[in-house]
Structures are given as C-alpha cells and as structure tokens.
C-alpha cells in the first residue's frame, strides 16, 4: 500500500512542521513569559532571581537544544507547565476538556440537524417564498460574527423571553445557547453542500426512472442524496473542526463557560505561551488525523474511486 504509507508520512511531516511553526511563533517572543509573570516591580525580584526562575523553566539554554528537548518531552506526553498558574498543562487540559467536548459534540449535532432542515425546506418546502427564504439562510449565516450571535441569543432568550439564565446556567440549560452560537455558522456550509447535492441529484435522469418505478421522495433522499452529499461533507470535516475550535473560544468567552476555549483566551491574555503551544499543536494534530482518516476512507466509501485505485491517489493529491 504505497499510497497509505505516503499519506501517513506526509501527515507525520505536517505534524512535526506544525509543532515547529507553533514553537517558533510562540517562543520567539519579544517579551518573555517569565518577565511578564515575575517581572512586575511589586514582586521585587532581583535580576538574579529572575535568572534562576528562567533556569527552572529551562529558558536559558540555546534555542535549538530547547526546541529538541521540548519536542521530545511533547512526544513523551510531558506538556510542560503554565507560566501563569504553575499548574501542569496536561492537568489544565484534562479539567477543561470534558466540558468543551460536550459543547463541541452537541453543537455538531445541532449544526447537522439545522443544515438538514434548511436544505430540505429550501428544496421541498411548500411555498416558493419559504424555499427562497431558506435558500437565503446559509449566505446570511456565514456573514454573522460568532460572538454577536451569542450576544443576540442572550438578549432574546435570556432578557426578552427569560427562558434561560444569561450567566451561570448549568447542565442542559447552560448548554443550549453556547451550542446554538457555535452551530449556526457551522450549519451554513453544511447546508450549502446538502443543497448542492439535492439540486444535482434532482436533475439526474435516473431520478425520473426511480420515480417512475414508484420511489418516494424520502427514499430518494436517503438512498441517493444522502450518499452523494456524504463525500463532500467529509472533505469539509477538517475545516469544520477548525470552526468548532474557533467557535468554542468565542462562545465560551461570551457565556463565561469553563473549557478549552476559555483556557485559550486566558492564555493569550496573560501571554501564557506553554499552554497556548499545547493547544495549538493538539488542534493541528486533531485536524491532521481527521484529514488522514477522511482521505483513507474516501476509496472505501466511494466505489468510483476504488474502481480506479491507481488514479485515485493522484487525483486526491491534486484536488486537495
């Protein structure tokens, strides 16, 4: 399987490069993190003490050595310590992850439901104006600032209607608004892909034949549209993941919800680069894995690609 091997190698190369880029970006800082944390006059630390602190963080050694060491430590699963709180980054992540994962998964489900609803109504809605309205929704949704969606939801559902407490809601209640905030912009590209698939399938000659043999619209949608829409949707998986991460940062900030997003925002505000480095690299790692899986799944899901296996890798390399 030369294609699989090549694809794996490529993913590995991108991962190492991603770590390098993030490392260079985040530790080539002009004002170093130690100074930002311990340099304030109130602490009254002498330059020698600052140097000692630097040494304890290993910040006084040559850059290349530090880079290699940090990469090796990273591979061992040792993510270092937050400059800001002194806690191990892995502990910070472990406490923040569950809430963010719940939020992300819930948002994804809502986004898919929303996208299917939009695409279905825009194609099969009863009235012309209804179809046109729903067709206009995806372009509108991608034009909304995510943080603004969150604030508008708070305004309507918390203050005007009083349905959900604005801040400090827990459990499912606390999940609803942040989830919608993330889901709305993600639903838009999904709905567009679905719409395009429905439009494409509807104009195919075989649909007439299938219909003539008594197929219902539902059957047609499940059997043909869903299958046709699956592949382009899968290609978008990586991009959607990026949107999810960005959405989590914004919505967790807007709703003051603990999680990876808020941890990210905090670490930027306090220039806590070790934390941000780990978050960036793990996000890149997830993205690369998602794309790898999608690429390897492609020939499995699409018989057309399986038939011409020889051509498939080349074709994907060119279009990606």
């Amino acid at each position, binding site marked *: 399987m030369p294609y699989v091997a090549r694809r794996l190698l490529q993913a590995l190369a991108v991962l190492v490069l991603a770590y390098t880029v993030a490392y260079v970006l985040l530790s080539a800082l002009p004002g170093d993190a130690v100074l930002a944390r311990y340099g304030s006059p109130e602490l009254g630390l002498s330059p020698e003490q600052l140097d000692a602190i630097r040494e304890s963080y290993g910040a006084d050694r040559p850059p290349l050595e530090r880079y290699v060491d940090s990469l090796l430590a990273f591979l061992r699963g040792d993510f270092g310590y937050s400059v800001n709180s002194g806690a191990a980054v892995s502990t910070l992540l472990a406490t923040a992850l569950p809430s963010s994962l719940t939020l992300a998964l819930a948002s994804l489900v809502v986004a898919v439901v929303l996208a299917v609803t939009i695409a279905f109504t825009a194609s099969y809605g009863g009235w012309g104006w209804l179809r046109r309205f729903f067709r206009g929704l995806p372009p509108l949704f991608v034009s909304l*600032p995510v*943080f*603004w969606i969150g604030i508008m939801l708070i305004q309507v559902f918390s203050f005007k209607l009083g349905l959900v407490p604005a801040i400090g809601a827990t459990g499912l209640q606390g999940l609803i608004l942040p989830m919608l905030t993330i889901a709305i912009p993600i639903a838009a590209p999904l709905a567009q892909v679905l719409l395009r698939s429905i439009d494409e399938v509807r104009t195919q000659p075989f649909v007439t034949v299938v219909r003539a043999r008594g197929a219902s619209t539902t059957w047609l949608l499940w059997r043909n549209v869903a299958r046709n829409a699956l592949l382009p949707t899968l290609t978008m998986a990586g991009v959607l993941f990026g949107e999810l991460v960005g959405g989590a*940062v914004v919505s967790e900030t807007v709703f003051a919800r603990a999680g990876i997003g808020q941890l*990210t925002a905090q670490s*930027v505000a306090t220039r806590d680069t070790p934390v941000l480095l780990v978050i960036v690299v793990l*996000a890149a790692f997830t993205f690369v894995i998602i794309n790898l899986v999608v690429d390897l799944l492609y020939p499995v899901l699409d018989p057309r690609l399986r038939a011409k296996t020889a051509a498939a890798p080349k074709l994907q390399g060119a279009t990606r």
Partner: protein
Amino acid sequence: MSTITPAAWDAGATHDTATIELPAPEQAEPAQRDQPQRDQPQRDQPQPKRPQPEQPQQGQPTGRGGRPRAARSTARRPKSRFLSAGFLVPVAAILIGLAWAIAPGLFATGSPTETVGPALQAPSAQFWFGTDATGRDLYTRVIFGASESIVGALVAVLVGFAAGTTIGVLAGAVGGVLDEALMRLVDVLLAIPALLLSLSIVILLGFGTTNAAIAVGVTSIAVFARLARSQVVSVRVSEYVEAAYGSGGTFWSVLWRHILPNSLTPVVALAALQLGSAILQISTLGFLGYGAPPPTPEWGLLIAEGRNYVATAWWLTVLPGLVVVAIVLATNRLSHFIRGGDPA
C-alpha cells in the same frame, strides 16, 4: 490559429484572444440572431465562439471590423446582470462602507471619543444609534470604526493575497521539490485552526489593529496559495503556454505575460470573499480584546463594550452588529457575483 481548440480558447479568453481576429459587428449580428438561446441570460460562460467564417455573409466585406473589445463583451453579457439588485445592492453597501472608512467626517460631525449627551440614550432623531455608557454617540463611533475595521480587512487581504499568491504561483510554476516544500508549509497553515493561528501571531506581534490585521492575513495565506497553485498548474499545461515557450519565451516572461493573467481571476474573486471573512475575524480579535485598545471605535470592540449593557441598552450590541453583518454579507454576495453565480 487553426490549431486552437475551443477549450484552450475559452481558457485563454481573458488574455490571448486579444490577438485573434474579431468578426465585424455587422457579421456578428445575424450570426447571433440565429442562436435560439440568445434571449437567455448568459452568465459565467461566454457564448461558444464559433470560428468566424462559418456563415458566408452575402454582400458584406470580409475585412476585420475593428470593434473595441469592451463593446463586444457587453454584447455577450446582457446589461441586466450588472443592473440587477444582486450586484448593485452589495456594491452600494461596500461603497458606503469605504466612504465611511475614507472620510468619516462627511457622515458624522462629532468626534468618536467625545461625550455628546446623556449616557445610554436609546436611538432617537438626535442620536441615530443612541449613546453608550459614557454618553458618546454610537453612530459616530460606528462610522469612525469603519476605518479601523475596513482598512484592517484590506491590509489582511493584501497580506494573504500577496504572500499566498506568491507561494502558490512559485509552487505551481516551478514544481518539484520547491512545490512539495511550500505545499507542506501551506498544509501546516491549514492544519492550525484560523483563530488559534491568528491568536499565536497576535501574541508574537503584540496587540493592536495593524497586528490583528496581519495575523488575520496570515491565516488566509493557505487558501490563496492553494487556489493560485491549482490555477497555475492547470494553465501551465495549456497549449498557448507551450506555444509561448516554443516561440522563445523565458520562464519569467511566460509566467508574467501568459500564466499570471490567465490564472488570477478566481484568486481575485477569493480576495473579495476573504474581505468579508477578514472583517469578521478582525472584529472577533477586537471583541476578545486583542485588537485595538479601548477608546478606539473598532467594531468588535464596540460590541464587546456594549455587551455589559445587553439587558438595558440593546442598541449598543445590535446596531454595530447589523452594520458588520451588512458589510460582510455585501462582500460575500459581490464575490459570489464575480465568480459568476446568479445574482439572487
């Protein structure tokens, strides 16, 4: 000329057809009338160009008509496309936004940081968008904020366009090891979620409007590079490029005279699309507090400041947000139009 296939001809339509003889207008007229689909709006695809001498014209001189190209292209694309609401409304919105950015003084008399009335006044005839917590006129602030947000977005797109197109064109035109290396770098830029990448760069450069704009620009390098590369790769194998090499063109001259002009149209459409997304991303950085510092009326920051008054002063978040949405929607529709979508 006889060797040019219709496909190559279409691909080269923006550039290389300039040297091809045009039919005289008197000849073109009857030829077009014969085509049944003439009344249908022809959108992205120009009418299939038939080699001219197919229809013998009786009594017409066969010399070249020498009609200007511009006239020809309007004949092919019905005027209605440019007069439709799908084109005019976005253009008007963008022009207004640009005018705000260039000359805010024309639209608002006061200063954006000056207290002009009581705090937290609802929108009225005097204060169109109401006033904020310190009694500043929100309408004035939104208008002065346009220069922050729109100029920032232009900077961002310029950074992404320049760097991305350079990378993409080099990778596509040179190929080989350079292509492989550049594309892996692009893969990395794509792999890091846009917001995280821009946050990392903002940390590196420091907070501020320009830095936020540059950071947002860097996140769009990858898409520009990808698109430019795929365009160049497809143009590079076309016959007129081969012909240009064959007639003694050097690498750079062919790149400049033939490959670039024929591959950049989609990239320009992407730039228009990126403008909207750059405004969104810059306002997000501003909202999170990593963009312009507080007294600046940057749009994201305006909304962030209004956020503390959601319960009492809806206009502080709703109205600036609507302005952002209107401008972003306009750039998205315009980009859709440039790419030749239907003006809906």
